[in-house]
């Protein structure tokens, strides 16, 4: 096996050209998935394109009243951005459940998204928050909702030569709150058996005016469960509304049984976690 070529382009255009030139090339950001897959011989790319040298790839900046997070920004750095952590605590917490501290010092949300694991922790939080993703490629740039980046386990919708440049989060709405929870057998260093994200907006009376509920690890991709959000809108998040929401989540969940959990358990936990995550989001919304 010849060693893969290693490229460190300094512009988005160079990176895109390198990726376009070699269908076997893979993007390296944090590398916490890529290197593991390389070493276990699950993948054998002939070229690796490191995007960390490209200006603007690392760091968080204000954009359109919200946030633009460079694709190579490690998860740990998200915690250091006080404005981001205050606006979207669910996203920042979700990204900081991935792996261990050492892993999070390298790992990126963009990589978590493009790796397309159904159990990726940051993705349900991004989907609930309404994040969009800026993708660069040979024919320019496009912006898509986070939920549209993945198409199945290990599969993303990026075209040949494309890579993620940044993740964009809107401004936190007045009365908004978000949260993410996952179920794992251990307390950390684990992979979600079920994940659930919520982003709510409450009006001054405590009535829910907007709700986005997402679930992970219970379908080929992270799901935005619109019926679950609809079950909450107009309610004051009373038990009946929560139960309708949970039922919508259970209906939407289409998990497989594997070493990490049974179908029955995952469906039941999707409902439990959705209720719990809505409660945390509600508390955050009420403080907002």
């Amino acid at each position, binding site marked *: *096996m010849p060693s893969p070529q290693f490229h460190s382009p300094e512009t988005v255009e160079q990176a895109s050209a390198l990726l376009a030139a070699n269908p076997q090339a893979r993007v390296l950001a944090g590398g916490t998935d890529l290197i593991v897959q390389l070493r*276990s011989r699950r993948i054998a790319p002939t070229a690796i394109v490191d995007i960390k040298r490209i200006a603007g790839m690392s760091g968080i900046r204000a954009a359109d009243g919200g946030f633009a997070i460079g694709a190579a920004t490690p998860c740990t750095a998200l915690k250091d951005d006080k404005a981001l952590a205050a606006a979207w605590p669910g996203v920042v917490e979700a990204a900081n459940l991935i792996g261990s501290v050492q892993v999070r010092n390298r790992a990126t949300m963009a990589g978590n998204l493009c790796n397309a694991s159904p159990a990726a922790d940051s993705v349900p939080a991004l989907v609930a928050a309404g994040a969009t993703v800026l993708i660069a490629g040979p024919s320019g740039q496009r912006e898509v909702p986070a939920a549209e980046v993945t198409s199945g386990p290990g599969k993303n919708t990026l075209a040949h030569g494309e890579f993620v440049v940044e993740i964009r989060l809107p401004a936190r709405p007045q009365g908004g709150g978000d949260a993410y929870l996952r*179920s794992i*057998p*251990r*307390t*950390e*260093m*684990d*992979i979600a*058996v079920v994940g659930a994200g919520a982003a709510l907006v409450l009006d001054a009376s405590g009535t829910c005016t907007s709700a986005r509920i997402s679930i992970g690890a219970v379908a080929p991709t992270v799901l935005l469960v619109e019926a679950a959000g609809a079950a909450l809108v107009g309610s004051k998040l009373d038990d009946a509304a929560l139960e309708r929401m949970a039922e919508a989540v259970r209906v939407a969940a289409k998990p497989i049984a594997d*070493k*990490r*959990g*049974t179908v*029955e*358990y995952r469906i*039941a*936990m999707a409902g*439990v976690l959705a209720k719990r995550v809505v409660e945390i989001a509600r508390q955050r919304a009420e403080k907002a």
Partner: protein
Amino acid sequence: MNAPQDKASFKPAYDVVGTRPVRPDGVEKVTGKAIYGTDHVAAGMLHGAILRSPHPHARIRSIDTRKAEALPGVKAVVTGADFPSLASLEVSLGEGSGNIAAISRNCMAHEKVLYDGHAVAAVAATSAVIAEEAAALIEVEYEVLPHVLTIDEALAPGAPVLHEDMFTKGLPEKPAEPSNAALCFTVGRGEPDAAIAAAHTVVSGRYSALAVHQGYIEPHACVASYNADGQVQVWASSQGAFMIRTLCASILGISQADIRVTPLEIGGGFGGKTKVYLEPVAIVLSRKSGRPVRLAMSRADVFRASGPAPGVVADITVGADADGTITGVVMEFKMLSGANPGNDTHSGAMSALAHYNVANCRVTGWDVLCNTAATAAYRAPGAPQTIFPVECCIDEIAQKLGLDPIDIRLKNAARPGDVGIMGMPAGEIGYAECLEAAKAHPHYSAPLGPNQGRGIAGGTWGNYGGPSTATVNLGEDGSVLVTTGSPDIGGSRAAMAMMAAETLEIAYEQVRVTIADTSSIGFSMLTGGSRTTFATGKAVILACEEIIATLRARAAVMWSIDVSQTEWRGGAVHCLSGDKAGTSLTMGQIAAKAGFSGGPIAAEVALNAQGFLPGFGVHICDTEVDPETGHVSVTRYTVVQDVGTAIHPDYVEGQMQGGAAQGIGWALNEGYVYDKAGRMDNPGFLDYRMPVCSDLPMIDTVMVEKPNPAHPFGVKGVGEVPIVPPLGAVANAVSRAIGLRVHDLPLTPDRVYAAMQGKS
């Protein structure tokens, strides 16, 4: 398991023993200088790789190594054909024995592969990348055979048989057909069936636990160098350099004197490093290539091809009187030992009831083979699996009779002089003292919150003594060098230095301890069975006593008095008569003149240590179960253990906490999972879930020090007992938290949730 009940020679208080000095190997380890298995480098060293079977059961039709050999950088390729074809020969390995042919074939398959991960060929090359690439170029033609993964599959009529020459041992008559049942073993006494029939209260159930790995953080690794004259050096991390020497010599037909094994620092063993996997292969690669060769396992290799401890299924019935006296026990358990006959059935059967007086009992164990990795010892091998069902049944009886779970154990506890199931009266054992200490501990009376339950379980392990060698040499300045052949897996260098210092009546810092290679010290049995501080420690103490005798004799000559007129006190010889009465000579003063008297001051003691005593433990476990998800949190945990005398209490407490942590992992989340094709589905720490720090509370420890009269300082051995009670303690705590008896480990959230759903 007994010891002389002579306490007259027992010394009650010590200067060094029982203190907590810094370990002598600590600085080297925390500064990253210590040389572990994969750190050793030999000049001109090649890197090896092993090709492993992707099939759980297959006949090897052919192996074509030509493409691998042709790859530039490849210096040697070996297969089973490069190993001597051994008859089925058993060698004594101290505590147990091993079938050399089976051990050899586990290192490198001959004819058949028996599990996913079984080694079929190996390569040595100028880099690890080339070696791995070459291994992938080896073409193996397999005839895939049907496989068995569970006890039911292995024992089903017509099941594929792993070893065509294996007939169940221990049955009244040799069976007509070979099978996957290697052994049936029964111990017991009295009339258990009648006792159970007449009992006031009877509980029964089927309990199970999965195979679990020892989980040492350091993967197996070694370097071997075969010289043209047939002399071999091996550098390896293991629990016994002499074990490696014995096995490599037997497998490869090499004289033991021609193999020099240097022990490297060990990053955890827990019983799993009492076997060879890589060393014979590295020697053969080195012989073929003419260069030193390093072999190292990946984490996945460690999971697939080393360890684990056997899983178990046990059917048990226990009868008791209305007052909680256990009147009868019948248990039949089956250990799932993997690809070769295991070692846990005898110990499991003999340990199951060793902590109780049970007049009527029958314990039958079966050793069952299947197409998974050949099992290895793991802390108190066999005992956790069989004591778990016993402790759960006692808990259930206590609940039914409204008895306190510690009181019912005290009522039935084995005490000194009680004759056990093996027909031997117990020595100075401390189970009852542990139960009393547990009852008095504040944890036991602390209130419980909602969804919480408290579990109690006891347990025991027999410990061991056996052969050890120690030498003690004095430097010319009087400093003390202790040398043993016992790898230090739990702080034993500190313990050896402390026992030497205590014996010599000098400061701990004056003593340094080396663990020598197999050509530089006499034989010691491997570090295991909780024997090292007891047995090797005894050799160190006796060698120090010889040093004292030598020093007194030398001083007496220098003073021209009879040796009886000298006294050893405070690390010096004191003159009691003649011109120099009242003066003294220090070790340094005598050692400096050694060249003018009898020469270097040294002593060597080789012994076969007798009088070891079993250890006992009682664990208190609080769990909280999330009623909506089935998650079990261990909220508080206390380990009470009879440790004999604790030489270095930090390391004794560390053993207690470490064993408890591993046992909690076994109870809650650990376990081997296979897919339908018979491949291990979780060969990594992500999906093989050992507890991480945040999974556990601080584990409180209570050392009950009931000394062993057969050891100069009262040592009993502490490393194995603490993994025995947690399985029952956690299961009992969960059972009480959810109001439902749980039987199957691990208690993963989905299983506990399903159990709770079934109830409601």
